C-alpha cells in the first residue's frame, strides 16, 4: 500500500537547514499496523506529514497505492500530535468534521460519532467546547475524529501521549480491535515501546536526527491480542530488544 | 510695511482680478502693505474663518456676512464690489425660459448651504409657482456644472457671472436673475472683524482702496489685464483667459446699484443695505435685528486712492 524509497526531507536551505529525514525506504502492505519509534526530533511526524501529503519530500519517491503522493490520499484518517481541534465547534461537531468535509450527511454519522466518543469515555462531553477539555480529553476527541469514517489509511501521531496508563490500555485494546476488524492500514507514532509492540505487526525504529531507519522489526505475536499478551516472554523479548536499540543510540549517564 | 492676510471666497476665478492685479503692479508695496492672498472654498467658510480672526480681511459674498453678523460674529463690510445680487437661474438659451413662470415641471439644481437656497420659494413665487411645481435637486457646488451640462437638470442656480461663462462654452445659456424679482442684496465685497478694523484701520483702508481702485480700472475696459493678472498669480491653475475675461465682463453688470452708481468704486449705500437686510429678515435668515450702519462702513475707502488707480495712475 505504501512504498517509500530514499525519502529525504530538508527544512530550510544551506547551512542553517535541518535534515529531518535522510533516506527512508519502507514498504507497508494493506492492513498492516506499523509503529514508528525514535528519539524526539528524529522526523517521525515529518514522515507522517509526507505520507499525508501535507509536506513534500525533498528527494526520493513516496507512493501510496502505487501513486506518487501529491496530496492527502483517499480514505485517510489522521490524528495530529497537537490535537488540532476547532475551537468554534463542540466535541460532537469536531468529531463529525470528516463526514462534513467528505460531503456526507452529518446526521448519518452521528451515531458512529457518539459511539466512538463513548468508547473514549467522553459521553458527558459531547456538547462541550474544546476549551473546556483537559489535555488528554482533547487528544481523545482528535482520535475519535480520525476514526469516524473508518479510514483505509490511519496515521496517528502520539495519540495517547497525554493519557494515563489505564485509559491508554483501554484505548489500545479498542484501537487494536477496530483496526483488526476494518483491516485498516495504520502508521502509529508512539514513545511507548510496549504500546508499539502490543499494537503492531511491525515496529520501525528511527535513529536520531537526521532520521534513518535503524531496524524494522516484525512482531510475530498472535493476530488477535489481549492485554495478557504483554506478560508473555516473546513480548518481553521484543521490548528488551527495542530498548537495546535505543540504548545503543545514546548513552544514559546518571 | 503693514502685513495683511487676505482670504478669498473661492479658488481662482474672474472675481479675483483686482487682488492679483494690484499685487502684480506692486501697488500693495507702493502703499506700504505686505499682503498674502489665500484662496478659499466658499463664502460661508471665509466669513467664519475671517470672523474668528484667522485672517485680517476676507473677500466673500456680503449677504452671508450680514447673516453671520446677526448671529453674533462681529464682522463688517468695508467695501462692496458686486453690489447687485449676482445669483440667478442658468438655463439653456434655447429652452425658452425667460422668467420663473416658465419653470413648471423643470428640474433645477441648487446647492444647499449657499445663499440661493433660502430664496428659492420667493423666486418661484414671482412666477406664481411653488416648490411642488418644479423638481429641485440639491447638489454640491462642484457637482452643479456637471449636472447642468450633462442635461440632468434643466437649470441651475448659481452666481451668474461665475457660472455663465464656464457653462456657455458647452451649453449655450442665459440667466434669469434673482435681483430682477425683488431679491436684491449685496454680493462680493471686503469685510473684516471689528477688532481688526480698529487695530489695523489704516492698513485696511489702504488695502480696500487699492483693491477698489483696481476693480474700477479693470472694469473700465482693462479686463484682459485683469484676466492676465490672475493667470500670472496662479500660473499652474490652467485658467482659461477667455473665461476669466467673460466673468469679469459679467461682473460689471452687477457691480453697482442705483444708489451707488455715481459713487467711487467700493462705496456702499445705506439704503441698499437696509432693503437687503429687510429681504434677508423676511427670509428668516437674521437672528437679531441688525441695522444698516452695523453691517458696513465706508470709512475705509479712500476716495483719492480709488480715483487715482481707477484712472490708471499707478
Amino acid at each position: 500500500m505504501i512504498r517509500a524509497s530514499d525519502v529525504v526531507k530538508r527544512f530550510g536551505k544551506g547551512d542553517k537547514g535541518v535534515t529531518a529525514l535522510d533516506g527512508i525506504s519502507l514498504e507497508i502492505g494493506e492492513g498492516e499496523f506499523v509503529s514508528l519509534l525514535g528519539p524526539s526530533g528524529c522526523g517521525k511526524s515529518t514522515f507522517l506529514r509526507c505520507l499525508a501529503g501535507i509536506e513534500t519530500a525533498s528527494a526520493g519517491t513516496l507512493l501510496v497505492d502505487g501513486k506518487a503522493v501529491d496530496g492527502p490520499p483517499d480514505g485517510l484518517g489522521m490524528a495530529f500530535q497537537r490535537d488540532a481541534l476547532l475551537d468554534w465547534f463542540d466535541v460532537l461537531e469536531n468529531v463529525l468534521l470528516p463526514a462534513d468535509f467528505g460531503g456526507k450527511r452529518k446526521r448519518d454519522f452521528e451515531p458512529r460519532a457518539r459511539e466512538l466518543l463513548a468508547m473514549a469515555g467522553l459521553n458527558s462531553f459531547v456538547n462541550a467546547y474544546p476549551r473546556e477539555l483537559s489535555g488528554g480529553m482533547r487528544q481523545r476527541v482528535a482520535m475519535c475524529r480520525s476514526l469516524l469514517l473508518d479510514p483505509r489509511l490511519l496515521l496517528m501521531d502520539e495519540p495517547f501521549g497525554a493519557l494515563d496508563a489505564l485509559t491508554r490500555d483501554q484505548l489500545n485494546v479498542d484501537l487494536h480491535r477496530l483496526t483488526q476488524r476494518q483491516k485498516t492500514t495504520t502508521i502509529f507514532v508512539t514513545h511507548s515501546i510496549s504500546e508499539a509492540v502490543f499494537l503492531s505487526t511491525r515496529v520501525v525504529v528511527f535513529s536520531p536526527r537526521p532520521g534513518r531507519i535503524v531496524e524494522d522489526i516484525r512482531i510475530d505475536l498472535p493476530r488477535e491480542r489481549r492485554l495478557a499478551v504483554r506478560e508473555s516472554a516473546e513480548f518481553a523479548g521484543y521490548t528488551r530488544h527495542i530498548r537495546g536499540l535505543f540504548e545503543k543510540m545514546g548513552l544514559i549517564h546518571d | 510695511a503693514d502685513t495683511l492676510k487676505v482670504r478669498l471666497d473661492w479658488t481662482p476665478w474672474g472675481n479675483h482680478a483686482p487682488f492679483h492685479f494690484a499685487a502684480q503692479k506692486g501697488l500693495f508695496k507702493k502703499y506700504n502693505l505686505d499682503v498674502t492672498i489665500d484662496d478659499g472654498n466658499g463664502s460661508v467658510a471665509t466669513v467664519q474663518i475671517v470672523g474668528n480672526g484667522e485672517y485680517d480681511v476676507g473677500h466673500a459674498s456680503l449677504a452671508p456676512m450680514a447673516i453671520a453678523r446677526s448671529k453674533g460674529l462681529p464682522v463688517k463690510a468695508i467695501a462692496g464690489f458686486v453690489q447687485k445680487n449676482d445669483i440667478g437661474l442658468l438655463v439653456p438659451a434655447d429652452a425658452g425660459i425667460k422668467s420663473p413662470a416658465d419653470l413648471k415641471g423643470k428640474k433645477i439644481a441648487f446647492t444647499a448651504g449657499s445663499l440661493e437656497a433660502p430664496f428659492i420659494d420667493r423666486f418661484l413665487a414671482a412666477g406664481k409657482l411653488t416648490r411642488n411645481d418644479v423638481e429641485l435637486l440639491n447638489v454640491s457646488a462642484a457637482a452643479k456644472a456637471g449636472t447642468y451640462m450633462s442635461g440632468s437638470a434643466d437649470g441651475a442656480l448659481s452666481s451668474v457671472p461665475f457660472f455663465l461663462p464656464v457653462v456657455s462654452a458647452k451649453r449655450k445659456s442665459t440667466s434669469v436673475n434673482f435681483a430682477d424679482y425683488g431679491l436684491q442684496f449685496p454680493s462680493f465685497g471686503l469685510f473684516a472683524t471689528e477688532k481688526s478694523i480698529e487695530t489695523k484701520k489704516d492698513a485696511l483702508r489702504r488695502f480696500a482702496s487699492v483693491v477698489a481702485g483696481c476693480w474700477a480700472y479693470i472694469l473700465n475696459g482693462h479686463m484682459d489685464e485683469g484676466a492676465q493678472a490672475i493667470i500670472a498669480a496662479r500660473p499652474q491653475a490652467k485658467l482659461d483667459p477667455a473665461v476669466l475675461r467673460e466673468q469679469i465682463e459679467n461682473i460689471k453688470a452687477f457691480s453697482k446699484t442705483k444708489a451707488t452708481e455715481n459713487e467711487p468704486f467700493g462705496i456702499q449705500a445705506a439704503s441698499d443695505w437696509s432693503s437687503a437686510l429687510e429681504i434677508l429678515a423676511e427670509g428668516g435668515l437674521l437672528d437679531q435685528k441688525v441695522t444698516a450702519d452695523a453691517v458696513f462702513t465706508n470709512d475705509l475707502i479712500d476716495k483719492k486712492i480709488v480715483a487715482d488707480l481707477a484712472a490708471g495712475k499707478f
Partner: protein
Amino acid sequence: MPSALWSGFRRSSVPLLGALVFIVLWEIACRLFAIRPILLPSPTMVLRELADSPAWFAEQTVYTVGITLAGFGAAVVFGVLFAIIIVEWKLLERLLFPLFVGLNSVPKVALAPLFIIWFGVGDTPKVAIAFLIAVFAVVIDTALGLRSVPPDTLDLARTLRGSRLKVLLRVKLFCAMPHLFAGLKVAMSLALVGAIVGEFVSSQRGLGYVILSAQGMFDTTRVFAAIAILAVVGVALIEAVAIVERLAMPWHHSADRGGH
C-alpha cells in the same frame, strides 16, 4: 435578577459618566470663556435646539441611518466576497488587489460630482459613497482573518480533503470572525461618515443636508445638534455590531467561563 439589573445599570453608567463629564466640561468652557455660539454653541443650546423639533430631527436621522445601513450592508457583502476571492485565488489578488487599493485611495469627495451624473440624485449615489468609504476596512480585516488560520488547523483541513468551500465555511470564516467584526466596526463608523459625505454632495434630506444648510446660514447650533445626533447614532450602531459579534461567537464565551 434585580442584581443583574443593578449591574447592568452600573455597567452602562460608566460610559454615560464619561460622556457627562465631557459635556459638563464643554458647557463650563463655553460659559467661562464666553465662546460665541456661532463658533461653538454650549450643550444646553444644542439640547434646546434638539428639543424644539425632535420629530423633524428624528426623521432626518432615520433617513441618514437608512443610507448608512444600506452602504454598510453593501460593503459587508461585497467586502467579504472580495476578501474571499483574493485570499482563495492568489492570482486574482495580484491582479485585483492593487487596483482595489488604488481605487480606494481616490477621495470619494472628489468623485462625488461624477457619482451624481452616473447614479442620478436619488439615494443611490449616497449609498454608493457610504459603501465605497466603508468597504476597504472590511476587505483588509476579513482578508487578514481568512489568512489567520493556525497552521495545524490548515493541515487538518487539507487531510480531510474538503472542498475549498467547506474549508472556507467551516474553518476560515470562523477564524476570520474576530477580525471581521473589528473590520465591521470600522466600516460602520466609516459608512456613517460616508452617508453624510454623500448627503453633502446631493440630498434633500438627512443629517448631512441639515448640517450643510445650517452651515450656510451660520446656524452653528443646529450643525452641532446634527453632530450630537451623529455621535449618539455612531455609538449605537457600533454597539449593535458588538452585540451581533457576541451572539455570533458563543465559543468565545465559553472561554470566559474558565475565568481567564
